[in-house]
Protein backbone atom coordinates (compact mmCIF):
# COMPACT_ATOMS: atom_id res chain seq x y z
CA UNK A 1 0.00 0.00 0.00
CA UNK A 2 2.78 2.35 0.97
CA UNK A 3 4.62 1.57 -2.20
CA UNK A 4 1.48 2.14 -4.21
CA UNK A 5 1.02 5.56 -2.63
CA UNK A 6 4.63 6.50 -3.23
CA UNK A 7 4.36 5.49 -6.86
CA UNK A 8 1.09 7.32 -7.31
CA UNK A 9 2.62 10.44 -5.85
CA UNK A 10 5.60 10.26 -8.18
CA UNK A 11 3.29 9.65 -11.14
CA UNK A 12 1.27 12.70 -10.20
CA UNK A 13 4.39 14.87 -10.05
CA UNK A 14 5.52 13.68 -13.46
CA UNK A 15 2.04 14.25 -14.82
CA UNK A 16 2.14 17.87 -13.69
CA UNK A 17 5.60 18.32 -15.16
CA UNK A 18 4.90 16.76 -18.52
CA UNK A 19 1.20 17.35 -19.18
CA UNK A 20 1.75 20.89 -20.53
CA UNK A 21 4.42 19.69 -22.95
CA UNK A 22 2.22 16.81 -24.04
CA UNK A 23 -0.70 19.17 -24.72
CA UNK A 24 1.60 21.47 -26.64
CA UNK A 25 2.77 18.61 -28.83
CA UNK A 26 -0.78 17.38 -29.43
CA UNK A 27 -1.96 20.85 -30.45
CA UNK A 28 0.93 21.28 -32.86
CA UNK A 29 -0.95 18.73 -34.99
CA UNK A 30 -4.30 20.51 -34.75
CA UNK A 31 -5.64 21.70 -38.10
CA UNK A 32 -7.41 24.62 -36.42
CA UNK A 33 -5.48 27.61 -35.14
CA UNK A 34 -7.46 27.56 -31.91
CA UNK A 35 -7.15 25.39 -28.84
CA UNK A 36 -10.95 25.41 -28.62
CA UNK A 37 -11.46 23.35 -31.76
CA UNK A 38 -9.98 20.04 -32.80
CA UNK A 39 -10.26 20.20 -36.57
CA UNK A 40 -8.30 17.09 -37.40
CA UNK A 41 -4.70 16.00 -37.74
CA UNK A 42 -2.30 18.00 -39.85
CA UNK A 43 1.43 18.44 -40.41
CA UNK A 44 0.84 21.84 -41.98
CA UNK A 45 2.25 23.84 -39.06
CA UNK A 46 5.53 21.96 -39.36
CA UNK A 47 5.67 22.74 -43.07
CA UNK A 48 4.82 26.39 -42.52
CA UNK A 49 7.33 26.61 -39.70
CA UNK A 50 10.22 25.88 -42.03
CA UNK A 51 8.93 28.37 -44.57
CA UNK A 52 8.58 31.12 -41.99
CA UNK A 53 11.63 33.25 -42.52
CA UNK A 54 11.11 35.28 -39.37
CA UNK A 55 10.92 32.31 -37.02
CA UNK A 56 13.82 30.57 -38.74
CA UNK A 57 15.94 33.69 -38.44
CA UNK A 58 15.02 34.02 -34.76
CA UNK A 59 15.91 30.35 -34.20
CA UNK A 60 19.25 30.95 -35.85
CA UNK A 61 20.02 33.98 -33.69
CA UNK A 62 18.80 32.25 -30.54
CA UNK A 63 21.12 29.32 -31.14
CA UNK A 64 24.15 31.35 -32.22
CA UNK A 65 23.80 33.69 -29.24
CA UNK A 66 23.24 30.79 -26.84
CA UNK A 67 26.24 28.76 -28.05
CA UNK A 68 28.61 31.72 -28.32
CA UNK A 69 27.63 33.31 -25.02
CA UNK A 70 27.74 29.95 -23.21
CA UNK A 71 31.25 29.15 -24.47
CA UNK A 72 32.68 32.61 -23.85
CA UNK A 73 31.03 32.85 -20.43
CA UNK A 74 32.36 29.40 -19.54
CA UNK A 75 35.93 30.36 -20.42
CA UNK A 76 35.76 33.65 -18.50
CA UNK A 77 33.78 32.14 -15.64
CA UNK A 78 36.12 29.18 -15.16
CA UNK A 79 39.17 31.43 -15.12
CA UNK A 80 37.40 33.70 -12.65
CA UNK A 81 36.43 30.76 -10.44
CA UNK A 82 40.03 29.55 -10.26
CA UNK A 83 41.15 33.06 -9.40
CA UNK A 84 38.49 33.48 -6.74
CA UNK A 85 39.32 30.09 -5.25
CA UNK A 86 42.90 31.17 -4.66
CA UNK A 87 42.00 34.48 -3.03
CA UNK A 88 42.43 35.43 0.62
CA UNK A 89 39.38 35.30 2.85
CA UNK A 90 38.25 38.96 2.85
CA UNK A 91 38.87 39.51 -0.82
CA UNK A 92 37.06 36.30 -1.59
CA UNK A 93 33.98 37.36 0.39
CA UNK A 94 33.86 40.69 -1.41
CA UNK A 95 34.22 39.17 -4.87
CA UNK A 96 31.73 36.41 -4.13
CA UNK A 97 29.15 38.97 -3.07
CA UNK A 98 29.80 40.88 -6.26
CA UNK A 99 29.15 37.63 -8.12
CA UNK A 100 25.90 36.96 -6.31
CA UNK A 101 24.40 40.38 -6.96
CA UNK A 102 23.79 39.88 -10.69
CA UNK A 103 22.21 36.49 -9.93
CA UNK A 104 19.67 37.88 -7.50
CA UNK A 105 19.20 41.11 -9.44
CA UNK A 106 15.87 41.18 -11.29
CA UNK A 107 16.29 40.69 -15.04
CA UNK A 108 14.59 43.95 -15.77
CA UNK A 109 17.26 45.90 -13.89
CA UNK A 110 20.03 44.01 -15.68
CA UNK A 111 18.36 44.54 -19.05
CA UNK A 112 17.61 48.20 -18.59
CA UNK A 113 21.02 49.07 -17.18
CA UNK A 114 22.81 47.21 -19.96
CA UNK A 115 20.72 49.02 -22.55
CA UNK A 116 21.56 52.38 -20.99
CA UNK A 117 25.24 51.44 -20.88
CA UNK A 118 25.24 50.44 -24.56
CA UNK A 119 23.48 53.61 -25.60
CA UNK A 120 25.81 55.66 -23.41
CA UNK A 121 28.87 54.12 -25.07
CA UNK A 122 27.30 54.64 -28.51
CA UNK A 123 27.28 50.94 -29.28
CA UNK A 124 24.68 50.20 -31.95
CA UNK A 125 22.09 47.88 -30.39
CA UNK A 126 22.04 44.61 -32.28
CA UNK A 127 23.90 41.32 -32.42
CA UNK A 128 27.00 42.46 -30.54
CA UNK A 129 25.12 44.15 -27.71
CA UNK A 130 22.84 41.13 -27.36
CA UNK A 131 25.82 38.79 -27.20
CA UNK A 132 27.62 40.96 -24.65
CA UNK A 133 24.51 41.08 -22.50
CA UNK A 134 24.09 37.32 -22.57
CA UNK A 135 27.74 36.73 -21.70
CA UNK A 136 27.36 39.16 -18.82
CA UNK A 137 24.41 37.46 -17.17
CA UNK A 138 25.86 33.99 -17.83
CA UNK A 139 29.25 34.47 -16.15
CA UNK A 140 28.06 34.37 -12.50
CA UNK A 141 26.23 31.09 -13.10
CA UNK A 142 29.37 29.49 -14.51
CA UNK A 143 31.43 30.73 -11.54
CA UNK A 144 28.87 29.37 -9.11
CA UNK A 145 28.84 25.94 -10.71
CA UNK A 146 32.63 25.65 -11.01
CA UNK A 147 33.57 26.87 -7.51
CA UNK A 148 32.13 23.89 -5.56
CA UNK A 149 34.18 21.52 -7.68
CA UNK A 150 37.31 23.53 -6.84
CA UNK A 151 36.45 23.35 -3.16
CA UNK A 152 36.14 19.56 -3.32
CA UNK A 153 39.53 19.36 -4.96
CA UNK A 154 42.44 18.00 -2.93
CA UNK A 155 44.90 20.91 -2.58
CA UNK A 156 47.81 18.52 -2.60
CA UNK A 157 47.06 17.34 -6.13
CA UNK A 158 48.34 20.57 -7.65
CA UNK A 159 51.39 20.65 -5.44
CA UNK A 160 52.15 17.03 -6.21
CA UNK A 161 52.06 17.83 -9.90
CA UNK A 162 54.51 20.70 -9.37
CA UNK A 163 56.78 18.41 -7.33
CA UNK A 164 56.81 15.96 -10.18
CA UNK A 165 58.12 18.70 -12.47
CA UNK A 166 55.00 20.09 -14.10
CA UNK A 167 54.91 23.80 -14.87
CA UNK A 168 51.96 25.60 -13.19
CA UNK A 169 50.16 25.95 -16.49
CA UNK A 170 50.71 22.31 -17.35
CA UNK A 171 49.49 21.27 -13.91
CA UNK A 172 46.32 23.32 -14.34
CA UNK A 173 45.66 21.91 -17.76
CA UNK A 174 46.35 18.28 -16.95
CA UNK A 175 45.38 18.01 -13.29
CA UNK A 176 42.99 20.73 -12.20
CA UNK A 177 40.89 21.09 -15.36
CA UNK A 178 39.98 17.40 -15.73
CA UNK A 179 39.05 17.30 -12.04
CA UNK A 180 36.66 20.24 -12.27
CA UNK A 181 35.37 19.35 -15.75
CA UNK A 182 31.93 18.19 -14.54
CA UNK A 183 31.41 21.62 -12.96
CA UNK A 184 32.50 23.37 -16.15
CA UNK A 185 30.13 21.32 -18.28
CA UNK A 186 27.29 22.00 -15.85
CA UNK A 187 28.07 25.71 -16.09
CA UNK A 188 28.18 25.54 -19.89
CA UNK A 189 24.82 23.80 -20.11
CA UNK A 190 23.29 26.13 -17.55
CA UNK A 191 24.54 29.17 -19.44
CA UNK A 192 23.20 27.77 -22.70
CA UNK A 193 19.76 27.12 -21.21
CA UNK A 194 19.56 30.52 -19.53
CA UNK A 195 20.48 32.21 -22.76
CA UNK A 196 17.81 30.38 -24.77
CA UNK A 197 15.26 31.12 -22.04
CA UNK A 198 15.95 34.78 -21.59
CA UNK A 199 13.39 37.32 -22.71
CA UNK A 200 13.69 40.45 -20.59
CA UNK A 201 17.38 41.18 -21.04
CA UNK A 202 17.23 40.31 -24.75
CA UNK A 203 14.26 42.56 -25.31
CA UNK A 204 16.10 45.60 -23.99
CA UNK A 205 19.50 44.95 -25.51
CA UNK A 206 18.67 43.91 -29.05
CA UNK A 207 18.27 46.29 -31.95
CA UNK A 208 16.72 46.24 -35.36
CA UNK A 209 17.04 43.03 -37.33
CA UNK A 210 18.03 40.72 -34.49
CA UNK A 211 15.27 38.89 -32.60
CA UNK A 212 15.35 35.80 -30.46
CA UNK A 213 12.59 33.22 -30.27
CA UNK A 214 11.34 34.49 -26.93
CA UNK A 215 10.91 37.98 -28.41
CA UNK A 216 8.96 36.60 -31.37
CA UNK A 217 6.67 34.53 -29.15
CA UNK A 218 6.04 37.50 -26.86
CA UNK A 219 5.24 39.80 -29.79
CA UNK A 220 2.51 37.41 -30.93
CA UNK A 221 0.56 38.14 -27.74
CA UNK A 222 -1.94 40.49 -29.37
CA UNK A 223 -2.85 38.26 -32.29
CA UNK A 224 -2.47 34.95 -30.50
CA UNK A 225 0.40 32.51 -30.47
CA UNK A 226 0.69 30.93 -33.87
CA UNK A 227 0.63 27.09 -33.79
CA UNK A 228 3.90 27.19 -35.72
CA UNK A 229 5.44 27.98 -32.35
CA UNK A 230 3.89 24.80 -30.92
CA UNK A 231 5.49 22.87 -33.74
CA UNK A 232 8.85 24.50 -33.09
CA UNK A 233 8.64 23.87 -29.33
CA UNK A 234 7.78 20.23 -29.97
CA UNK A 235 10.79 19.85 -32.21
CA UNK A 236 13.08 21.53 -29.65
CA UNK A 237 11.72 19.28 -26.91
CA UNK A 238 12.27 16.21 -29.06
CA UNK A 239 15.85 17.27 -29.85
CA UNK A 240 16.66 17.72 -26.18
CA UNK A 241 15.03 14.40 -25.35
CA UNK A 242 17.07 12.54 -27.99
CA UNK A 243 20.28 14.24 -26.85
CA UNK A 244 19.59 13.26 -23.23
CA UNK A 245 18.88 9.67 -24.20
CA UNK A 246 22.10 9.46 -26.21
CA UNK A 247 24.18 11.01 -23.44
CA UNK A 248 22.72 8.72 -20.79
CA UNK A 249 23.08 5.70 -22.99
CA UNK A 250 26.72 6.47 -23.67
CA UNK A 251 27.67 7.16 -20.08
CA UNK A 252 25.94 3.92 -19.13
CA UNK A 253 28.05 2.10 -21.69
CA UNK A 254 31.25 3.69 -20.38
CA UNK A 255 30.48 2.53 -16.87
CA UNK A 256 29.88 -1.00 -18.07
CA UNK A 257 33.29 -1.04 -19.72
CA UNK A 258 34.97 -0.02 -16.51
Amino acid at each position, binding site marked *: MKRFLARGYAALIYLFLYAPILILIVFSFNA*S*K*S*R*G*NWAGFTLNWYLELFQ*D*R*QIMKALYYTM*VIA*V*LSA*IIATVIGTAAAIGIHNMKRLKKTIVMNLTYIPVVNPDIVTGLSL*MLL*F*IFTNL*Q*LGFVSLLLAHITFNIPYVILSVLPKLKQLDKNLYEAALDLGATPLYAYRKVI*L*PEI*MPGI*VTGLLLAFTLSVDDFVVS*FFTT*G*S*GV*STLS*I*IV*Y*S*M*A*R*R*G*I*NPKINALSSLLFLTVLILLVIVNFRSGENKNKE
Partner: protein
Amino acid sequence: MKKYNRLILSLVLLLTVVLLTACQQDERVVLNVYNWGDYIDESVIQEFEEKYNIRVNYDTFSTNEDMYVKIKAGGADYDVLFPSDYMIERMIKEDMLHKLDFDNIPNYKYIEGQFKNLEYDPQNEYSVPYMWGTVGILYNKTMVEEPVTSWQILWDQKYSKQILMLDSQRDSIGVALKMLGYDMNTRDLDELEAAKQALIEQKPLVLAYVGDDVKDKMIAGEAALAVVWSGDAVYMKWENPDLEYALPEEGSNLWVDAMVIPKTSKNKAEAELFINFMCDPEIAFKNTDYIGYSSPHSEAKKMLDPELLDDPAAYPDLEGLVNYDIFKDLADYLKVYDRIWTEVKAH
Protein backbone atom coordinates in the same frame (compact mmCIF):
# COMPACT_ATOMS: atom_id res chain seq x y z
CA MET B 1 38.72 14.40 -20.99
CA LYS B 2 38.99 13.22 -24.55
CA LYS B 3 35.22 13.19 -24.80
CA TYR B 4 35.03 16.86 -23.76
CA ASN B 5 37.80 17.81 -26.17
CA ARG B 6 35.85 16.37 -29.01
CA LEU B 7 32.73 18.16 -27.88
CA ILE B 8 34.48 21.50 -27.69
CA LEU B 9 36.20 20.98 -31.02
CA SER B 10 32.93 20.22 -32.78
CA LEU B 11 31.29 23.25 -31.19
CA VAL B 12 34.08 25.52 -32.39
CA LEU B 13 33.82 24.08 -35.90
CA LEU B 14 30.09 24.59 -35.92
CA LEU B 15 30.51 28.17 -34.84
CA THR B 16 33.04 29.00 -37.52
CA VAL B 17 30.70 27.70 -40.17
CA VAL B 18 27.78 29.61 -38.69
CA LEU B 19 29.74 32.84 -38.41
CA LEU B 20 31.17 32.57 -41.90
CA THR B 21 27.71 32.23 -43.39
CA ALA B 22 26.50 35.12 -41.26
CA CYS B 23 29.26 37.41 -42.45
CA GLN B 24 28.38 37.17 -46.12
CA GLN B 25 28.52 40.65 -47.50
CA ASP B 26 25.27 42.17 -48.62
CA GLU B 27 25.45 45.36 -50.60
CA ARG B 28 21.75 46.07 -50.66
CA VAL B 29 20.10 48.88 -48.72
CA VAL B 30 18.67 47.52 -45.47
CA LEU B 31 15.22 48.60 -44.40
CA ASN B 32 14.27 47.97 -40.76
CA VAL B 33 10.57 47.36 -40.29
CA TYR B 34 8.90 47.09 -36.87
CA ASN B 35 5.38 45.69 -36.84
CA TRP B 36 2.94 43.90 -34.52
CA GLY B 37 3.54 40.17 -34.18
CA ASP B 38 1.89 38.03 -36.88
CA TYR B 39 0.51 41.13 -38.63
CA ILE B 40 1.64 40.67 -42.22
CA ASP B 41 1.63 38.05 -44.93
CA GLU B 42 5.33 37.30 -44.95
CA SER B 43 5.51 36.47 -48.64
CA VAL B 44 4.85 40.17 -49.21
CA ILE B 45 8.23 41.05 -47.68
CA GLN B 46 10.01 38.72 -50.06
CA GLU B 47 8.16 40.21 -53.02
CA PHE B 48 9.25 43.68 -51.95
CA GLU B 49 12.87 42.56 -51.61
CA GLU B 50 12.91 41.02 -55.04
CA LYS B 51 11.16 43.87 -56.76
CA TYR B 52 13.30 46.69 -55.39
CA ASN B 53 16.51 44.88 -54.45
CA ILE B 54 16.27 46.11 -50.86
CA ARG B 55 16.85 43.87 -47.86
CA VAL B 56 14.15 43.99 -45.19
CA ASN B 57 14.89 43.38 -41.53
CA TYR B 58 11.53 42.52 -40.09
CA ASP B 59 10.97 42.67 -36.31
CA THR B 60 7.84 42.51 -34.21
CA PHE B 61 6.44 44.03 -31.01
CA SER B 62 3.42 43.24 -28.88
CA THR B 63 2.22 46.57 -27.51
CA ASN B 64 2.44 50.19 -28.59
CA GLU B 65 4.24 50.95 -25.36
CA ASP B 66 6.97 48.34 -25.96
CA MET B 67 7.55 49.83 -29.38
CA TYR B 68 7.61 53.38 -28.01
CA VAL B 69 10.22 52.52 -25.38
CA LYS B 70 12.47 50.97 -28.01
CA ILE B 71 12.29 53.97 -30.32
CA LYS B 72 12.48 56.59 -27.58
CA ALA B 73 15.57 55.06 -25.98
CA GLY B 74 17.45 55.38 -29.25
CA GLY B 75 19.82 52.68 -30.36
CA ALA B 76 17.27 51.04 -32.63
CA ASP B 77 17.16 52.56 -36.10
CA TYR B 78 13.82 51.44 -37.50
CA ASP B 79 12.56 52.84 -40.80
CA VAL B 80 8.88 51.89 -40.77
CA LEU B 81 6.61 51.43 -37.74
CA PHE B 82 2.97 50.36 -37.42
CA PRO B 83 1.67 52.07 -34.23
CA SER B 84 -1.97 52.66 -33.29
CA ASP B 85 -3.83 55.97 -33.38
CA TYR B 86 -3.12 57.39 -29.92
CA MET B 87 0.53 56.36 -30.09
CA ILE B 88 0.92 58.18 -33.41
CA GLU B 89 -0.55 61.29 -31.80
CA ARG B 90 1.96 61.04 -28.97
CA MET B 91 4.90 60.47 -31.30
CA ILE B 92 3.90 63.46 -33.44
CA LYS B 93 3.68 65.56 -30.30
CA GLU B 94 7.13 64.48 -29.24
CA ASP B 95 8.56 65.18 -32.68
CA MET B 96 9.56 61.58 -33.27
CA LEU B 97 8.09 61.17 -36.76
CA HIS B 98 9.07 62.32 -40.25
CA LYS B 99 6.52 64.07 -42.41
CA LEU B 100 5.77 61.78 -45.33
CA ASP B 101 6.37 62.82 -48.90
CA PHE B 102 3.10 61.72 -50.47
CA ASP B 103 4.52 62.15 -53.98
CA ASN B 104 6.42 58.95 -53.23
CA ILE B 105 3.27 57.20 -52.04
CA PRO B 106 0.87 57.43 -55.01
CA ASN B 107 -1.05 54.37 -53.79
CA TYR B 108 -2.29 56.50 -50.91
CA LYS B 109 -5.20 57.36 -53.20
CA TYR B 110 -6.68 53.91 -52.53
CA ILE B 111 -7.12 54.62 -48.82
CA GLU B 112 -10.76 55.40 -48.15
CA GLY B 113 -11.68 58.95 -47.25
CA GLN B 114 -13.06 58.07 -43.82
CA PHE B 115 -9.62 57.02 -42.69
CA LYS B 116 -7.84 60.15 -43.78
CA ASN B 117 -7.32 63.25 -41.65
CA LEU B 118 -8.36 61.53 -38.45
CA GLU B 119 -7.88 63.28 -35.16
CA TYR B 120 -4.52 61.75 -34.32
CA ASP B 121 -3.03 63.14 -37.53
CA PRO B 122 -5.41 65.95 -38.53
CA GLN B 123 -3.70 67.05 -41.76
CA ASN B 124 -2.65 63.48 -42.50
CA GLU B 125 1.00 64.36 -42.90
CA TYR B 126 2.61 61.56 -40.93
CA SER B 127 0.72 58.31 -41.35
CA VAL B 128 -0.88 55.90 -43.82
CA PRO B 129 -3.62 53.64 -42.39
CA TYR B 130 -2.93 49.89 -42.45
CA MET B 131 -5.76 48.13 -40.60
CA TRP B 132 -8.72 49.23 -38.52
CA GLY B 133 -11.44 47.82 -36.33
CA THR B 134 -13.88 48.31 -33.51
CA VAL B 135 -14.38 47.01 -29.99
CA GLY B 136 -17.66 45.22 -29.34
CA ILE B 137 -19.39 42.33 -27.65
CA LEU B 138 -19.01 38.79 -28.87
CA TYR B 139 -21.76 36.49 -27.59
CA ASN B 140 -22.73 32.88 -27.88
CA LYS B 141 -26.21 32.60 -29.40
CA THR B 142 -26.93 29.36 -27.55
CA MET B 143 -26.28 31.01 -24.19
CA VAL B 144 -27.67 34.51 -24.70
CA GLU B 145 -31.26 34.68 -25.86
CA GLU B 146 -32.08 38.36 -25.84
CA PRO B 147 -30.65 40.67 -28.52
CA VAL B 148 -27.36 42.25 -27.54
CA THR B 149 -27.61 45.98 -28.14
CA SER B 150 -26.04 47.61 -25.13
CA TRP B 151 -23.01 47.43 -22.89
CA GLN B 152 -25.54 47.04 -20.05
CA ILE B 153 -25.74 43.32 -20.73
CA LEU B 154 -22.25 42.94 -19.27
CA TRP B 155 -23.73 44.08 -15.96
CA ASP B 156 -26.64 41.61 -16.06
CA GLN B 157 -26.78 39.26 -13.04
CA LYS B 158 -28.11 36.51 -15.31
CA TYR B 159 -24.70 36.07 -16.86
CA SER B 160 -22.80 35.88 -13.62
CA LYS B 161 -19.41 34.20 -14.20
CA GLN B 162 -20.02 34.00 -17.92
CA ILE B 163 -18.51 37.34 -18.90
CA LEU B 164 -14.99 37.88 -20.18
CA MET B 165 -13.47 41.34 -20.01
CA LEU B 166 -10.28 42.53 -21.69
CA ASP B 167 -7.26 42.75 -19.45
CA SER B 168 -6.46 46.07 -21.00
CA GLN B 169 -6.73 49.26 -19.06
CA ARG B 170 -8.07 51.64 -21.67
CA ASP B 171 -10.42 49.16 -23.28
CA SER B 172 -12.06 48.08 -20.05
CA ILE B 173 -12.36 51.55 -18.52
CA GLY B 174 -13.60 52.67 -21.95
CA VAL B 175 -16.36 50.07 -21.91
CA ALA B 176 -17.54 51.27 -18.50
CA LEU B 177 -17.38 54.90 -19.60
CA LYS B 178 -19.41 54.16 -22.73
CA MET B 179 -21.95 52.17 -20.73
CA LEU B 180 -22.45 55.27 -18.60
CA GLY B 181 -22.68 57.44 -21.69
CA TYR B 182 -19.34 59.23 -21.38
CA ASP B 183 -16.47 59.80 -23.79
CA MET B 184 -13.71 57.17 -23.86
CA ASN B 185 -11.08 59.89 -23.65
CA THR B 186 -12.63 61.72 -20.76
CA ARG B 187 -10.54 63.76 -18.38
CA ASP B 188 -13.37 64.30 -15.96
CA LEU B 189 -12.51 62.77 -12.63
CA ASP B 190 -16.15 62.27 -11.58
CA GLU B 191 -16.88 60.32 -14.75
CA LEU B 192 -13.82 58.17 -14.21
CA GLU B 193 -14.78 57.49 -10.59
CA ALA B 194 -18.23 56.45 -11.78
CA ALA B 195 -16.63 54.10 -14.30
CA LYS B 196 -14.48 52.68 -11.52
CA GLN B 197 -17.54 52.03 -9.37
CA ALA B 198 -19.26 50.33 -12.31
CA LEU B 199 -16.28 48.06 -12.94
CA ILE B 200 -16.03 47.14 -9.26
CA GLU B 201 -19.75 46.38 -9.24
CA GLN B 202 -19.32 44.22 -12.31
CA LYS B 203 -16.37 42.31 -10.94
CA PRO B 204 -18.28 39.46 -9.23
CA LEU B 205 -19.95 38.69 -12.59
CA VAL B 206 -16.71 38.53 -14.53
CA LEU B 207 -15.26 35.10 -15.17
CA ALA B 208 -11.84 36.49 -16.03
CA TYR B 209 -9.90 39.45 -17.40
CA VAL B 210 -8.26 37.97 -20.47
CA GLY B 211 -5.85 38.80 -23.22
CA ASP B 212 -5.63 36.87 -26.41
CA ASP B 213 -6.86 33.64 -24.73
CA VAL B 214 -10.34 35.12 -25.09
CA LYS B 215 -10.37 33.50 -28.54
CA ASP B 216 -9.81 29.96 -27.33
CA LYS B 217 -12.27 30.41 -24.48
CA MET B 218 -15.08 31.78 -26.62
CA ILE B 219 -14.56 29.21 -29.38
CA ALA B 220 -14.69 26.44 -26.80
CA GLY B 221 -17.90 27.91 -25.38
CA GLU B 222 -16.48 28.54 -21.92
CA ALA B 223 -18.23 31.91 -21.57
CA ALA B 224 -21.35 33.57 -22.93
CA LEU B 225 -20.19 37.14 -23.47
CA ALA B 226 -16.84 38.77 -24.12
CA VAL B 227 -15.43 42.16 -25.01
CA VAL B 228 -13.33 41.65 -28.14
CA TRP B 229 -11.69 43.42 -31.09
CA SER B 230 -13.63 43.12 -34.34
CA GLY B 231 -10.82 41.43 -36.28
CA ASP B 232 -10.67 38.64 -33.73
CA ALA B 233 -14.46 38.43 -33.73
CA VAL B 234 -14.48 37.58 -37.43
CA TYR B 235 -12.01 34.77 -36.80
CA MET B 236 -13.94 33.42 -33.81
CA LYS B 237 -17.21 33.43 -35.73
CA TRP B 238 -15.47 31.46 -38.42
CA GLU B 239 -14.29 28.86 -35.90
CA ASN B 240 -17.58 28.64 -34.02
CA PRO B 241 -20.75 29.61 -35.93
CA ASP B 242 -22.71 29.97 -32.65
CA LEU B 243 -20.88 33.19 -31.97
CA GLU B 244 -22.16 36.60 -33.02
CA TYR B 245 -20.65 40.07 -32.79
CA ALA B 246 -22.61 43.13 -31.71
CA LEU B 247 -21.75 46.82 -31.68
CA PRO B 248 -23.45 48.43 -28.67
CA GLU B 249 -25.64 51.41 -29.43
CA GLU B 250 -23.94 53.59 -26.80
CA GLY B 251 -20.90 53.63 -29.08
CA SER B 252 -17.49 52.18 -28.63
CA ASN B 253 -13.88 52.47 -29.66
CA LEU B 254 -12.69 52.73 -33.24
CA TRP B 255 -9.02 52.01 -33.73
CA VAL B 256 -6.59 52.42 -36.60
CA ASP B 257 -3.08 51.03 -36.99
CA ALA B 258 -1.06 53.06 -39.46
CA MET B 259 2.39 53.13 -41.03
CA VAL B 260 4.78 55.91 -40.03
CA ILE B 261 8.47 56.74 -40.45
CA PRO B 262 10.35 57.60 -37.25
CA LYS B 263 13.09 60.22 -37.20
CA THR B 264 15.60 57.44 -36.50
CA SER B 265 15.19 56.28 -40.09
CA LYS B 266 18.23 56.61 -42.32
CA ASN B 267 16.46 55.52 -45.49
CA LYS B 268 13.37 57.68 -45.73
CA ALA B 269 12.94 57.30 -49.50
CA GLU B 270 13.09 53.49 -49.27
CA ALA B 271 10.73 53.56 -46.30
CA GLU B 272 8.22 55.51 -48.39
CA LEU B 273 8.69 52.99 -51.17
CA PHE B 274 7.81 50.26 -48.68
CA ILE B 275 4.69 52.08 -47.46
CA ASN B 276 3.62 52.62 -51.05
CA PHE B 277 4.18 48.93 -51.77
CA MET B 278 2.00 47.97 -48.80
CA CYS B 279 -0.79 50.07 -50.34
CA ASP B 280 -0.54 48.30 -53.67
CA PRO B 281 -3.99 46.71 -54.24
CA GLU B 282 -2.69 43.13 -54.65
CA ILE B 283 -0.39 43.44 -51.63
CA ALA B 284 -2.99 45.11 -49.45
CA PHE B 285 -5.40 42.32 -50.32
CA LYS B 286 -2.86 39.62 -49.41
CA ASN B 287 -2.27 41.20 -46.03
CA THR B 288 -5.96 41.70 -45.32
CA ASP B 289 -6.67 38.13 -46.33
CA TYR B 290 -3.93 36.78 -44.07
CA ILE B 291 -4.59 38.94 -41.02
CA GLY B 292 -8.38 38.96 -41.20
CA TYR B 293 -8.73 42.47 -39.81
CA SER B 294 -10.60 45.22 -41.64
CA SER B 295 -8.77 47.07 -44.37
CA PRO B 296 -9.08 50.79 -45.15
CA HIS B 297 -8.02 50.03 -48.75
CA SER B 298 -10.78 50.49 -51.33
CA GLU B 299 -9.30 48.14 -53.96
CA ALA B 300 -8.34 45.41 -51.51
CA LYS B 301 -11.89 45.36 -50.23
CA LYS B 302 -13.22 44.69 -53.72
CA MET B 303 -11.20 41.49 -53.90
CA LEU B 304 -12.53 40.20 -50.59
CA ASP B 305 -15.18 37.53 -50.18
CA PRO B 306 -18.50 39.44 -50.52
CA GLU B 307 -19.83 37.55 -47.52
CA LEU B 308 -17.13 39.09 -45.36
CA LEU B 309 -17.81 42.56 -46.76
CA ASP B 310 -21.44 42.24 -45.74
CA ASP B 311 -20.52 41.11 -42.25
CA PRO B 312 -21.12 44.08 -39.95
CA ALA B 313 -18.52 42.65 -37.59
CA ALA B 314 -15.77 43.18 -40.16
CA TYR B 315 -17.11 46.13 -42.15
CA PRO B 316 -19.80 48.00 -40.21
CA ASP B 317 -21.45 50.96 -41.84
CA LEU B 318 -19.15 53.69 -40.60
CA GLU B 319 -21.65 56.44 -41.27
CA GLY B 320 -24.06 54.70 -38.92
CA LEU B 321 -21.59 54.57 -36.09
CA VAL B 322 -22.18 57.43 -33.73
CA ASN B 323 -20.18 58.03 -30.60
CA TYR B 324 -17.28 55.94 -31.80
CA ASP B 325 -14.20 57.43 -30.21
CA ILE B 326 -10.67 56.98 -31.41
CA PHE B 327 -8.32 56.80 -28.45
CA LYS B 328 -6.44 60.01 -27.82
CA ASP B 329 -3.06 60.35 -26.25
CA LEU B 330 -3.77 61.07 -22.59
CA ALA B 331 -0.23 62.27 -21.86
CA ASP B 332 0.07 63.04 -18.14
CA TYR B 333 -3.54 62.20 -17.44
CA LEU B 334 -2.74 58.54 -18.12
CA LYS B 335 -1.69 58.16 -14.52
CA VAL B 336 -5.28 58.73 -13.40
CA TYR B 337 -6.35 55.86 -15.66
CA ASP B 338 -3.48 53.80 -14.22
CA ARG B 339 -4.71 54.44 -10.70
CA ILE B 340 -8.36 53.66 -11.53
CA TRP B 341 -7.40 50.41 -13.21
CA THR B 342 -5.16 49.36 -10.34
CA GLU B 343 -7.95 50.05 -7.87
CA VAL B 344 -10.40 47.99 -9.93
CA LYS B 345 -8.02 45.08 -10.28
CA ALA B 346 -7.02 45.15 -6.61
CA HIS B 347 -10.56 45.40 -5.29
